[in-house]
């Protein structure tokens, strides 16, 4: 019996030492909040160019706890996130390293990176409004505020108010207009919902196509994904039933969020990590982001993809994302308070 146990333990220990957690010079270890299939193409090119192997561990819940718990023993060198919130949490937790890189400072506008180099935005995505071509008039909805107008009653679809994209949008409203105004607005939106918040952004487009609602809030790249989906051509139809509206062009601009990256304080291969970040901010990777994921590159002068271009250019809200991130908890509580998801 005891022999069986020890055999199992030894077997496990042997297996444990297989993947590349050991320090080797030509490696970089990445913790990613972004799904591997989204980032793998860029990483492959990076390896091809530099000879540095990228090891990835992807997780969403608990990654920050993992970094904190591993402390100085962490095998990870850098992290990738899908929004500003996670970057800010890590900054607050003190697990990030300040990176001073000319390449990064040059390629990334100040608004999309931490002033001391703790984190860097790599792409932006705008939180826009999908509107039914048939059922929404040209100037009927032009701003987020319009969504709270009683004339929209029963016409809005949205994913959970607790999703980080919506939390970020609500937090930006709080920064601009204060808690009270924002709460009034959110209540207005809730009153106009066609159904309980559910699904992801693509599901909202489908609901518009099927006539369950007329407008929805969504991220830009979902539109690109649907428009080019050859394997599921029905999604092209959903997209073609929808007009894109960049809200608030007359005033503060459309809310944007970033996907970003940072180097960890206890990185063992800091140099390689910085190289990876610099590559991700380079022309090559930036245009890949634009072409494959329909995101907006942060590097000025990198052309957006043709598809993205066809949606038109827009004025982005230039408010500090750090400031927005600070109000996320407040936004989450507001969603609870008014029972937005119920």
């Amino acid at each position, binding site marked *: 019996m005891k022999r069986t146990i020890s055999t199992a333990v030894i077997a496990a220990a042997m297996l444990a030492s297989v993947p590349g957690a050991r320090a080797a010079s030509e490696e970089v270890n990445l913790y990613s909040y972004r799904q591997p299939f989204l980032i793998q193409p860029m990483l492959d090119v990076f390896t091809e160019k530099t000879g540095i192997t990228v090891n990835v561990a992807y997780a969403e*819940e608990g990654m920050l706890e993992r970094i904190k718990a591993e402390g100085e023993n962490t095998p990870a060198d850098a992290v990738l996130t899908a929004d500003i919130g996670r970057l800010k949490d890590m900054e607050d937790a003190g697990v990030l390293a300040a990176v001073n890189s000319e390449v990064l400072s040059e390629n990334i506008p100040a608004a999309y990176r931490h002033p001391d180099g703790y984190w860097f935005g790599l792409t932006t995505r705008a939180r826009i409004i999908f509107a039914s071509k048939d059922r929404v008039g040209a100037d009927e909805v032009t701003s987020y505020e319009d969504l709270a107008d009683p004339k929209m009653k029963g016409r809005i679809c949205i994913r959970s108010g607790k999703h980080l994209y919506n939390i970020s949008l609500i937090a930006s409203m709080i920064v601009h207009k204060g808690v009270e105004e924002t709460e009034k607005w959110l209540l207005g939106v809730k009153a106009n919902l066609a159904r309980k918040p559910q699904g992801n952004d693509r599901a909202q487009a489908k609901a518009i196509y099927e006539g369950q609602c007329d407008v929805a809030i969504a991220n830009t790249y979902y539109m690109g994904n649907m428009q080019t989906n050859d394997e599921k051509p029905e999604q092209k139809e959903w997209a073609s039933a929808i007009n894109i509206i960049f809200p608030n062009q007359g005033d503060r601009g459309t809310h944007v969020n970033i996907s970003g990256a940072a180097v960890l304080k206890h990185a063992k291969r800091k140099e390689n990590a910085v190289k990876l970040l610099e590559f991700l901010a380079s022309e090559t990777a930036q245009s890949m982001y634009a072409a494959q994921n329909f995101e907006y590159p942060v590097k000025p002068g990198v052309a957006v993809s043709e598809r993205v271009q066809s949606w038109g250019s827009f004025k982005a809200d230039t408010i500090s994302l750090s400031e927005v991130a600070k109000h996320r908890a407040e936004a989450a509580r507001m969603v609870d308070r008014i029972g937005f998801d119920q």
Partner: protein
Amino acid sequence: MTRAFDGWSLTALIVAALVALPLLSVFGLALSGSGDVWAHLVSTVLGNYIRTSLLLMLGVGVGVAVIGAGTAWLTSACRFPGVRVFEWALLLPLAVPAYIVAYIYTDILEFAGPVQGAMRDLMGWKTARDYWFPEIRSLEGAIAVMVLTLYPYVYLLARSSFLEQTATLLDAGRVLGNGPWRNFFRVALPLARPAIVVGVSLALMETLNDFGTVDFFAVQTFTAGIYDVWLNMNSMAGAAQLATVLLLFVFMLITAERLARRGRRFDMKAGRKKTHVHDLKGWLAVAAILACLLPVLFGFLLPMSVLFSHAMVFYEDSLNSGFWRHAGHSLLVSSLVALVSTVLGLVLGYGARLSGSVLTRYASRVASIGYAVPGSVLAVGIMLPLTQFDRSLNIFSTRLFDLPLGLVLSGTVFALVYGYSARFMALSLGSVESGLARITPSMDGAARTLGANRSETLRRVHLPLLRRFLLTAILIVFVDSMKELPITMLLRPFNFDTLATYTHQFARNELFEEAALGALAIVAAGILPVILLSRTITGGDR
């Protein structure tokens, strides 16, 4: 010579401590302050969380009990066409991850799905206001999906209990004037009650730890609340406190059930095995076939055919070398965990039997309720002690040899095997315990007085008698490990994907056609064990 602290009790205690460690570290997290999170929750959504969770538990509990026990009775006491197939087919939904079933039914039944679309085309309806259709993304929808995927736990245990009931007892019922139905309710069902209760409590623990399904269905359960506090309000302490409350609740439920059962003995003497079987004819047979077919149809066949059709389309995209590697990882980890967890369950169960110490007994009880903790929270609880160990080890090795060892336990396959084993201990220990309970203590005494020591007694007497239960433990843990997600996500090494994580990265984005092949592979890997499982149960009777 001294027996005060012998090897077996000590080993069992260590195993229990190891299994309980993740929970203790969750309790530890709960001790730090969480600001005004509670005040906020109480004044806003907590009541709703609790109400929703209780309704969900009630619905799932009743559903799995009725379907599980009902089909178990039909397949063990009645004869009708197809019963031989249903015997094992009814277990198949066990192999399907609940969230996958949720995706599939949403796709089919939502407003934009094919069913409602066809109805609108047919009837000329335009909008949702023109007609009524049940909302799939709802509490009721979540209950339905969970019942469909969790009833096999009850079926499994209830069936093996029905098969063990001696004909004498049932005959006694008949002689006393009970009809077959009355006999079922008055004799067979009460005798199978402990098994049914264990099955239902496993299903309810799964219900409580589920996040994927309820999140997808936008049902605001207590568990969804734990995630919200953790991730959106950035309060791990608050989340740990909520998880602790959840655990206390589960512990109370289990204790209450045990108190209610106290004083009644359910163990059965060997006797004539069941010989008479109700032959169902005519409409009764049709009803029985329907009752067994529907759960299999909706819990397995329909979801599988949808997955299959998607997998066919995305076959080439998904089936690359990576896919086989992920499958390899899944099989490797699941097999390892099935063995380790069963061995640990055996050590714990046999150790508790030998020592009978209150400490060991409660430790194993606590260890088992870890199953009810939301997976990601348990994952953090597993990670903390492992990283702490690594940290101490590194300080030690750096001081002594100036050699930092890096992470030895955390972020390795060891961490995964440990995490899974701790999580699935309820399954393996439960199976071992129910097997041990059937071996009268005088068997131990007989073997010991005949010169066999404890280990020899285990080898020569208990192991052969437990074979069926050990195999059951291995198979259930294997099937559940194939589906396991949150612990893998957080504790895995670099570049280590399993079928579940591979499937999840697409499913998370509702790209569920891309996820189909992975999901199908998870299910396929579970089918063989499930059929073996069914044969194990039935075989024990012959």
